[in-house]
């Protein structure tokens, strides 16, 4: 694909890409920006090439997901190697970024908090289907899992999310 065409295409899905990067980075805004920039670098360098086997969006989302995973692994390793002995504090990331929670409206804040309680796969498949409006099949391609597995995560995730939201709503009404 021509670089100028690619730029236009990437620009077209920039907002969606940023949303997906946020989801992959537990709604840590700075981390999401870094992941997205690294992904652009991979595409510009040719380290990630679009071979046309899937849609550009599916492929690009897959690259973002892998980049985020790489970054998390690197951070985890860094934490294991250095912070463990130097800082002596556990470096577990918060479920949802404080900035995201602070800036989100009440309903969105409840949703973010509820989603954060789901497993990573469940979070991702729900985001791809409901937020990005992809099909479950496309979501399975982005996540590099089988369609059956994606369906299972989707159904279980939906069920669990509804449960959590209902519990939170009940608690809210009791107050």
């Amino acid at each position, binding site marked *: 694909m021509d670089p100028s065409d690619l730029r236009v295409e990437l620009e077209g899905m920039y*907002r969606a890409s940023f949303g997906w990067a*946020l989801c992959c980075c537990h709604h840590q805004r700075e981390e999401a*920006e870094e992941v997205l920039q690294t992904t652009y670098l991979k595409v510009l360098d040719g380290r990630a090439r679009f071979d046309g086997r899937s849609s550009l969006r599916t492929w690009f989302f897959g690259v973002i997901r892998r980049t985020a995973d790489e970054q998390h692994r690197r951070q985890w390793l860094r934490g294991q190697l250095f912070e463990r002995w130097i800082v002596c504090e556990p470096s577990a990331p918060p479920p949802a970024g404080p900035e995201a929670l602070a800036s989100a409206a009440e309903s*969105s804040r409840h*949703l973010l908090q509820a989603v954060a309680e789901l497993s990573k796969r469940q979070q991702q498949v729900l985001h791809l289907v*409901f937020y990005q409006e992809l099909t479950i099949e496309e979501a399975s391609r982005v996540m590099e899992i089988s369609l059956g597995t994606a369906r299972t995560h989707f159904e279980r995730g*939906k069920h669990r999310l509804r449960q959590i939201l209902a519990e939170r709503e009940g608690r809210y009404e009791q107050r």
Partner: protein
Amino acid sequence: MNSDDRDLHEAFATLRREEEAQVPIFSLAFEAERNQRRRRLPGKLIAWSATVAATIAIALSMLSGSRAPYQEHARIQTASITTWKPPTDFLLNTPGRELLQDVPAIGAWDSAATAAEPRAKHGHLKKTVLN
């Protein structure tokens, strides 16, 4: 996704609208990445050059290190061959060998020829006539 999922769909759509309002401008993110790439390029180049230089230095040191003992060994061997003598060397010490080893000087030829005269050398042998 079926019609029962409308509630979740709506909730996520609201979240998307809120998040999209805070997304940084694309050109800024893209250009930042391009600049970062430009900044990284000299660093990469330096790293590659250093790696290549280190590899060449290691290869050269290994080559010179392996050649030096070989040269020393060859020198010792050459020396031993020039000084070595076979145990049967004495068999070559035949009479008159010294004549073959020296180059005769011009003018000294006569005395040498005289010296080699059988008559002069074996002058004490005379025929005795038995009467």
